[in-house]
C-alpha cells in the first residue's frame, strides 16, 4: 500500500482476477507490471527503484514487457546472449529478445542481460529495466498460427540503460529471474490465452431461476446447439463424456488452487507447486479448445468472413492460440522437470 497499491494478498488478487474473468472483463493490460514486475521489485528492488516504478505500475501509467527468451535459447533461458557493458553510469546493451508479449504496446522492458560473459552461465546474468523508446531499440511483431501477433522480437543495438535501473546485485539476476518466473507461472495458471467462454445463452426467468440452483457447463451449453440432445443429454456420447471430464478437471483444479491459496502462509509467494498449476492449466486449456472444435464440426473451420459467426471464428483462433499455452511461460516439459526435481526431489 505504501507504493500506491491496493495491498491485496496473493489469494485476494487471484480472487479479483477470477471475479473479473467471471464478469468477462479482459485481464488488465498492466498484467506484466502488477503481476510480475511489481512483486519482484517489492522483493528485490531498492527504495529508489520502488519509489520510481511502483506507483506508475499501480496507476497503470507505464506498460511493461518482459525481455527473457532469446532466438535459439528456447527453454534453456540461462543461455541468453544479450550483452550489457558498463560505460560510465550507463549500460550499453546489444542483442535481441523473442516472445516478448505486447512489446509493441509497451513503454518499458525488464530484461535479462549478460554482464559477465566469462562467468558460469547462471552467474553472469543481471536484471535491468529500460525505456523501449531508447535509441537502438527495434520491435517487430511475430505472426502466430492463430493470426494474432501478441508476441514480438525486440532488437537492441547500442541501447543505453541507466545503471540505477539495474535491479538486485550485479550478476545476481538469475535468482530474480527464477523468482519472477514463478510469478509468471502463478499468473498463467489463473487463466490462459485461447480460452473464450461464450456468454451463456439468455434464459427465461424460470430457466434463470433454475440456473441459480443448478450449476451449468458453459462448454456444454456452447456445444448443445451444434450437437443436439437426446432426453436432455448431449447427443454425442463420447463428446459428452469429454466435456464431463473437462468440467471435472476444472472443478478439481479450482479447488486445488483454493486449497494451495489457503495453505500458503500470507506473504509467502508462489511455491514450486506453481509449476503444477501452470502445467495442468496449459494442458486443460488445450483439451478445452479441442473439445470446442469437436463440438462445432465444420463450423469451426472458418478463418474469416460472415459465413461463420464471430464467436466461431474466435473459438477457432483460440484453439490455435491455445497450442502455445504449453510452450509459453516455460514448456510443459520444463514444468514436469521442475516438479520432479523440486517437489518430488528425484535425482538428476
Amino acid at each position, binding site marked *: 500500500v505504501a507504493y500506491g497499491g491496493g495491498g491485496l494478498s496473493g489469494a485476494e488478487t487471484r480472487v479479483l482476477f477470477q471475479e473479473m474473468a467471471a464478469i468477462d472483463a479482459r485481464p488488465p493490460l498492466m498484467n506484466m507490471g502488477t503481476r510480475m514486475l511489481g512483486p519482484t521489485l517489492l522483493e528485490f528492488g531498492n527504495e529508489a527503484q520502488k519509489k520510481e516504478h511502483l506507483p506508475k505500475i499501480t496507476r497503470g501509467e507505464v506498460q511493461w514487457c518482459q525481455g527473457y527468451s532469446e532466438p535459439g535459447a528456447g527453454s534453456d533461458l540461462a543461455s541468453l546472449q544479450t550483452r550489457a557493458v558498463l560505460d560510465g553510469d550507463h549500460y550499453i546493451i546489444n542483442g535481441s529478445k523473442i516472445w516478448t508479449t505486447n512489446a509493441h504496446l509497451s513503454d518499458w522492458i525488464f530484461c535479462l542481460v549478460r554482464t559477465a560473459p566469462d562467468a558460469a552461465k547462471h552467474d553472469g546474468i543481471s536484471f535491468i529495466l529500460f525505456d523501449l523508446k531508447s535509441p537502438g531499440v527495434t520491435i517487430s511483431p511475430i505472426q502466430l498460427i492463430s493470426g494474432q501477433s501478441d508476441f514480438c522480437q525486440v532488437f537492441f543495438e547500442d541501447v543505453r540503460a541507466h545503471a540505477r535501473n539495474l535491479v538486485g546485485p550485479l550478476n545476481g539476476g538469475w535468482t530474480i529471474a527464477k523468482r519472477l518466473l514463478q510469478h509468471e507461472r502463478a499468473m498463467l495458471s489463473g487463466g490462459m490465452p485461447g480460452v473464450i467462454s461464450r456468454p451463456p445463452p439468455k434464459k427465461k426467468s424460470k430457466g434463470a431461476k433454475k440456473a441459480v440452483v*443448478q450449476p451449468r457447463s458453459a462448454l456444454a451449453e456452447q456445444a448443445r446447439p451444434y450437437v443436439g440432445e437426446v432426453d436432455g443429454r448431449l447427443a454425442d456420447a463420447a463428446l459428452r463424456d469429454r466435456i464431463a471430464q473437462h468440467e471435472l478437471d476444472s472443478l478439481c483444479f479450482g479447488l486445488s488452487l483454493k486449497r494451495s491459496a489457503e495453505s500458503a502462509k500470507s506473504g509467502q509467494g508462489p511455491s514450486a507447486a506453481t509449476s503444477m498449476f501452470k502445467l495442468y492449466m496449459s494442458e486443460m486449456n488445450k483439451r478445452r479448445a479441442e473439445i470446442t472444435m469437436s463440438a462445432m464440426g465444420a463450423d469451426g473451420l472458418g478463418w474469416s468472413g460472415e459465413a461463420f459467426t464471430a464467436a466461431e471464428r474466435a473459438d477457432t483462433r483460440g484453439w490455435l492460440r491455445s497450442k502455445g499455452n504449453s510452450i509459453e511461460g516455460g514448456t510443459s516439459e520444463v514444468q514436469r*522437470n521442475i516438479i520432479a526435481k523440486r517437489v518430488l526431489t528425484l535425482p538428476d
Partner: protein
Amino acid sequence: MALVLTEEQELLKETAADFCRNNVPVTHLRQLRDSKDDVGFSRKIWKEMAELGWVGILFPESVGGAELGFAELGVVLEECGRTLAPYPFMSTVLLGGRAILLAGSESQQAAILPGVCAGETLLALAFQEAGRFRPLDIETKAESAANGYRLSGEKVFVLDGHVADHLIVAARTSGSSGDRGGITLFLVDPSAEGLSIERTDMVDNRNAARVRLDAVSVDASAVLGSVDSGADILEKLFDAAAIGLAAEMVGIVNEVFERTVEYLKTREQFGVVIGTFQALKHRAAEMFCEVELSQAVVLDALRAIDEDRQDLPRLASAAKARLSDTASLVTCEGLQMHGGIGMTDEEEIGLFLKRAKAAELTLGDASYHRDRFARLTGF
C-alpha cells in the same frame, strides 16, 4: 469451510496415522487373509477404534458418539486407506449406522446406535442385486402380511454381511425395478427364519456376502423411515459413502505414490537409480498433479456433507469419479515402476492395486459418476 485441516484435525490425523501404522499395517490384512479369519478383521481393534472415538465420530453424544463431522471421519478413512485397514466403517458407520441416524425412530436409534458407537454392534446394508451399481434396480419384494411384511429376494455384495448384528434390507413395497418410489428399508435380524447369508471371497480380501431372503417375516416396527420413500435415504447414504470411499482412496493414492517415488530414488538399473530417467520423472510429475487435484476435491466433498450443501450429489460424483481414475492410474503406474517385484504377492503394491479396483467398482465407477455429474450439471 477451508480445505486445510484445523489443528484438531491435524492432531486426529497424527493419532490415526500412528495407530494404523502400529496396529493395522498392511501385514495385518495379509495375515487375516492367509489365516482365512472368520471375521475378516479384529473385533478387539475395532473396539479400540471405537474407544478412540472414530466409530462414533458422526453420531450424537446422546448415543455415545463424538458428534463431529465428515471432515474428521475423512481424516480417519484416509489413514485407514494408507494401511489397507479392513475395518467396517463403510458397512457399520457410513451405510448402516447413518441409515439409522437419518431414518430411524428414536427407539430404533436408542436401541442400536450406542452399541455401534461402542464398537460392539456391527451393521450391514443389503441393497445391491447385481454386480454393477444401479441404485434403483431393486426387485426384492416386501409383501404386507399379518402385522408386518414378508421379504423375498436376493442381495449381493453386502459389505460385512456375514458378521452384521442387524441387516438393513432395501425392498419394494410398491413399484418395480428402476422406480424411484416404492423402496422401503427394513431392519432385519440376521438369524431370522428364511434368511441365509453366504460370505464371498473377494479380490481385496474385504468382507462381502450374498443374502437370500425367502419369505422372511418382519413386523411393522422393522420399517426404517417411512414406507415407499427409502430411495431418498439411500441416495443420501450413497453420496456420503462414495465420498467416504474417495477419502479412503486418497490414502491409498498417497501411500502408493510416496512408495513409488521412494522406489524411484533407491532402485538401481544400468548403474543409476531409475529416478534419474526423465520418462519416469515426467510420469511421476503427471501423477503428482492428479494426486493434488484428487485431494482437493475430496476435502471439499467431505465438507459439503457437513455443510449439507445443495451441490452435494454433484460433488459426490465428482469425488468418486476422480478418485476412481486417480487410484487406478497411481496403482497401475506404481506397479509398473516397481517392475517384476511388483507382480509378486510378496510385495505389497499388489494389495493396493486390488483394493483400489474394489473401491473403484463399489458404489459406481468413474463412468457412472461422470454420467451422473453431467446430468447434475444440466447436460
